[in-house]
């Protein structure tokens, strides 16, 4: 009797796989022998079979006239355009070098500089083509729309720094600036964001073009390139390339290619994670106007063992100096970690009809994190969203992914405005 019960239980565990043709020949023989003289299991088989059949029909029937709206593609396009505007997502896929159509009068200066590890090789014979950049021009800031892509005159703007998200309600969608008659030059890095395996050669190209009707001077040329891990740790800097400058006549474009073999200044492979590759402090002058830019590409060096992908719901709270932070959720994907936390600052209230509380309460939180006790990495200040009863903080821009085999992550909120923490959370990942 006991034997038979065990058999039935075992058999019933296998019935779905049996019906799906997903059992081994031995299992199949075993199941069929059992079914021949067990009416209870035959009934169970019949029930499962009927559910499978109905489920297939029900799912097919309901899915068959469900279709996405026509706007989805437009929305995807918009998002990718906003993200990749600096290299012109949709309009620049006819590759080629800009040649000033104008002819003999204009001196066409196309200069290519390749740095490789400190060496600087001029005039590489066939450089990769530079995208012809269309949107996101750097403009003379006469009327300045407050978009992240629009630079300020001086001091040096950093056009590709991640935006700090002030509440969604007051931030307009990022718009690609319209080409303007005041446009002076265009600067594009490509790829703006890319993923590599450890040891792979990383290549980033900066193209600069003069789109005005007067010459511009670019210096230093070639610019220094700095590799940092988010946000401040410097891993590699090209040696000082002096104070040369380059004049670009109207229509000219120059292209700089930086290649990096993922080694730090001492020749060691850098750890996996996100890196910024910045063409530092490029100064562009035309007449009395001077602009300073730091075009930046972001690269992710992946873990050899792969990244962990999961979402962990936490809702754990820590109180330090009477301020409580609740760590709500950690989302881990192949390309990074996103952390959500919640806090109600003292005297917080959200006046109705206002986009947010008093500006003194627009406080971003600073944080750092570490997987398995490795060195802590600092985050950018949190993005904030004002809710009825408090503020949701999000850290999602370029936090490293978790290694697939990581045991735990420590997330430490160090500061909220002038309030010192730390509010520290250690979260098991396995």
């Amino acid at each position, binding site marked *: 009797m006991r034997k038979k019960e065990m058999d039935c239980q075992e058999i019933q565990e296998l019935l779905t796989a049996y019906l799906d043709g997903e059992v081994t020949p031995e299992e199949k023989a075993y199941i069929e022998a059992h079914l021949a003289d067990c009416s209870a299991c035959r009934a169970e088989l019949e029930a499962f079979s009927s559910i499978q059949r109905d489920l297939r029909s*029900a*799912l097919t*029937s309901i899915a068959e006239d469900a*279709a996405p709206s026509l706007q989805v593609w437009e929305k*995807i396009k918009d998002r990718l355009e906003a993200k990749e505007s600096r290299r012109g997502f949709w309009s620049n896929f006819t590759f080629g070098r800009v040649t000033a159509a104008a002819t003999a009068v204009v001196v066409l200066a196309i200069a290519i500089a390749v740095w490789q590890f400190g060496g600087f090789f001029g005039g590489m014979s066939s450089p990769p083509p530079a995208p012809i950049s269309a949107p996101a021009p750097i403009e003379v800031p006469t009327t300045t729309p407050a978009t992240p892509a629009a630079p300020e005159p001086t001091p040096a703007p950093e056009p590709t720094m991640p935006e700090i998200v002030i509440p969604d309600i007051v931030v307009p969608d990022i718009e690609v600036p319209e080409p303007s008659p005041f446009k002076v030059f265009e600067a594009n890095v490509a790829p703006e964001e890319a993923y590599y395996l450890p040891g792979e050669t990383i290549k980033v190209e900066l193209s600069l073009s003069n789109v005005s009707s007067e010459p511009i001077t670019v210096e230093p040329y070639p610019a220094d390139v700095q590799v940092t891990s988010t946000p401040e740790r410097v891993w590699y800097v090209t040696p000082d390339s002096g104070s040369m400058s380059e004049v670009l006549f109207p229509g000219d474009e120059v292209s700089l290619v930086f290649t990096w073999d993922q080694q730090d200044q001492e020749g060691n492979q850098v750890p996996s994670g996100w890196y910024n590759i910045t063409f530092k402090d490029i100064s562009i002058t035309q007449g009395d106007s001077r602009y300073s830019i730091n075009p930046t590409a972001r690269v992710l060096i992946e873990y050899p063992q792969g990244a962990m992908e999961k979402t962990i719901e936490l809702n754990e709270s820590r109180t330090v100096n009477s301020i409580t932070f609740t760590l709500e959720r950690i989302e881990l994907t192949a390309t990074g970690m996103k952390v959500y936390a919640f806090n109600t600052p003292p005297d917080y209230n959200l006046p109705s009809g206002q986009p947010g509380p008093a500006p003194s309460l627009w406080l971003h939180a600073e944080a750092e994190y570490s997987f398995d006790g490795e060195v802590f990495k600092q985050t950018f200040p949190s993005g904030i969203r004002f809710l009825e009863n408090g503020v949701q903080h999000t850290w999602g821009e370029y936090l490293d992914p978790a290694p697939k085999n990581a045991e735990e992550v420590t997330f430490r909120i160090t500061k909220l405005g002038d309030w010192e923490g730390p509010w520290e959370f250690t979260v098991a990942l396995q």
Partner: protein
Amino acid sequence: MPDLTEKWQTGDTAAFEALFRQYEKLVYRTAYLITGSKEAAEDILQEVFVSVWRSRHTYDAAKGKLTTWLHRITVNQCSRRKAGKASLAISLEEKGIDPPEMKRQVQPEEIAITRMEYQRLLQAMEALDAKHRSVLVLRYFNDLSYQEIAEALEIPLGTVKSRLNQSLKCLKARIEPGEASA
């Protein structure tokens, strides 16, 4: 289209749009059946293709089928969402359909019974979490083999088997309440 993959991976936007057109319904419907919400499915479709574009460099055709990769991203996106109130059963009711396999002449009451059975089944699915709903949808809607499901979800084959079996048991218990306590 052998060239499609290579082209969109190198950043060709026309090829990427073609890729989207080819797979949008697959992704949308899978997401819809897992989440039970058309609205969520549309958001997920967006997220999936934005993610495909951004991580295009990481996809390696030699390591697995494109659809497997798409299913993985889709299911990950679905499991990031909290279960909503939307219900497939309600959609079925709105649709007022004849079940597709009923080609023969059927009596109206027979259709009504079948539709009711479907509704109970879909309602029962709501009791399952996203992990279990995902394997059900990949198996009984997308018709993936157990091995393909294991690859798409990066879980062991044994887990696929047990999740499917548990899911069917749960559905059975819920549509036959009399036997649920047995």
